[in-house]
């Protein structure tokens, strides 16, 4: 046990009982909802230094620090969040919550349906990125924050960040959009479809009603293996595995000899089933596939018409899941709407996962960006509070 660690305590927020149900994008009313979230740093007196982090597909509310003295690895973006780090907790109040439909503390298909006393399973409504954002809005309001200094996220987190600027333009001073798209391509949807198929083809899936039985671990592991391939790149896989065999030097001309890349994927798939619910995989991947700002608002330009945030969009050269051209489409639409947007394409070999790996380079961009946003927000607020600025 490491006694020097500052232990993060996850919190929960509940809403959506009879009088304030959440109306989903599908039109279906839904509640109650429990939201698991963590916070880091301190909210200032005017509640003007709050940053909402938005996690990607398999992430959770545990963005930084340790939940216990024994935990072997810190939160998923620990390299970016903390004192002196880009999301500097000496300066900012950082929030991260698990998404609606997830399986890491926020209500999802594995949660108990109060109407039946059993897990929802496929009785859980289909949710969208817009629904996730509406849930986060309730949380932010509950925390007494009128306007966020920034929303920030990569991949599915970037989709939520984009959606925030569209759904709640006045409540987001800035948006940091990493490795994402305003609408996943047919190629991206295809990989998600393979993942869902792998799960649904596992006999243990039982039409989603596997709770209380053996879970469809094999199907979920294969889904994760496919997904994981899309997060890497040709170059990063070559560097990491090459064509090396795991336990022998030469081919055995049977099916027991494994390439290193095979055993890596097996390992990744195997560890994933311990922390992820197969039904959440199905629901969240569907939410990603449904995400389409262009389709929903007629055009990207139209989607961003009322946006009031300052934007920083970052893409990565080797990301073939959401390639740079898709980030540029976002940037061009914002530019044409005369929005304040900056764009950088980081030259990185790590594929889609770059936003989790290139923390030093993207971190320098983000901390520079956030400094000026905080300055301009404070300068704009100063006269209203009757304060004298130097």
């Amino acid at each position, binding site marked *: 046990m490491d006694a020097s660690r500052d232990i993060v305590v996850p919190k929960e927020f509940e809403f959506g009982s009879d009088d304030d149900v959440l109306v989903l994008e599908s039109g279906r009313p839904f509640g109650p909802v429990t939201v698991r979230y963590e916070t880091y740093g301190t909210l200032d007196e005017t509640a003007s230094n709050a940053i909402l982090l938005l996690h990607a597909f398999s992430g959770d509310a545990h963005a930084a620090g340790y939940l216990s003295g024994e935990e072997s690895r810190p939160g998923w973006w620990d390299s970016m969040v903390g004192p002196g780090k880009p999301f500097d907790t000496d300066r900012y109040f950082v929030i991260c919550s698990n998404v609606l439909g997830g399986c890491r503390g926020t209500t999802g298909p594995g949660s108990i349906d109060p109407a039946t006393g059993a897990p929802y399973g496929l009785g859980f409504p289909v949710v969208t990125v817009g629904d996730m954002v509406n849930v986060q809005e309730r949380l932010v309001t509950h925390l007494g924050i009128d306007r966020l200094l920034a929303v920030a996220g990569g991949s599915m987190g970037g989709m939520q960040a984009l959606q925030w600027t569209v759904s709640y333009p006045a409540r987001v001073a800035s948006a940091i959009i990493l490795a994402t798209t305003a609408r996943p391509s047919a190629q991206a949807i295809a990989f998600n479809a393979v993942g869902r198929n792998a799960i649904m083809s596992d006999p243990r899936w039982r039409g989603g009603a596997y709770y209380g039985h053996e879970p469809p671990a094999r199907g979920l592991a294969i889904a994760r293996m496919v997904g994981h391939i899309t997060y890497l790149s040709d170059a990063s896989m070559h560097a990491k595995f090459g064509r090396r065999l795991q336990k022998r030097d030469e081919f055995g001309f049977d099916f027991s000899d494994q390439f290193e890349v095979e055993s890596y994927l097996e390992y990744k798939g195997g560890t994933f089933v311990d922390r992820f619910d197969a039904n959440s995989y199905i629901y969240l991947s569907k939410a990603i596939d449904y995400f389409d700002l262009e389709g929903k608002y007629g055009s990207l330009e139209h989607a961003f018409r009322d946006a009031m945030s300052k934007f920083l969009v970052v893409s990565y050269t080797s990301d073939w899941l959401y390639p740079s051209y898709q980030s540029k489409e976002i940037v*061009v639409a914002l530019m044409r709407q005369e929005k304040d947007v900056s*764009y950088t394409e980081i030259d990185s070999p790590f594929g889609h996962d770059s936003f989790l790996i290139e923390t030093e*380079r993207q971190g320098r961009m983000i901390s520079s960006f956030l400094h000026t946003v905080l300055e301009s927000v404070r300068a704009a607020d100063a006269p209203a509070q009757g304060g004298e600025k130097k």
Partner: protein
Amino acid sequence: MTDDRITNRFSYDEIARLVAPGTHVLDLGCGSGDLLDLLRRTRGVTGRGVDIQEEMIRACLEKGISVFQGDLDEGLKEYRSQSYDYVILNETLQMIHDPVYLMNEMLRVGKRVIVNFPNFGYVVNRLQLAWLGQMPVNRTLPYEWYDTPNIHFCTRRDFVRLCDSIGAIIEAAVDLRRNRRVAGVFANFAATDCCFVLRKPESRV
């Protein structure tokens, strides 16, 4: 502020004098955003920069300047016609692969174009080439031929001819020798750097 006469760069104050207050500016090859920062502070412009280097993007973000990481050789196809009051190309023209294409793009996107470049016709360049028989290397052209980013040199006179051939009207010119003004008649001989304000005939503001 750094003294332009010491740093060799084209005087930002001279460029600022060419920009009307309160206008909307696109700075191509904006570097660390110093020019836009000056224009913002002294002329009240709004603007955006474009640069290709990651380090320059970060420097712009640090100043709160909107910036796009992109390659000018790809043109300005994302930008609407006449969407900026000024498009500035500062000390970059000679590094562009297809300068005529970019000039036309700038004249399409900007109501005015401000462009400056080192004058290859400057007397010292002529002497080095004619008398020493070697490519000019001096304070304004500090690179050896084999490691220079400059791939398209021109003289002041060449540039005026190009403007004529692409139908650009020269509204103003500033000719400098190490950031001190020189008279127009001797400029192709005496100026180290030339700066022009251009527009298309149909663009009147």
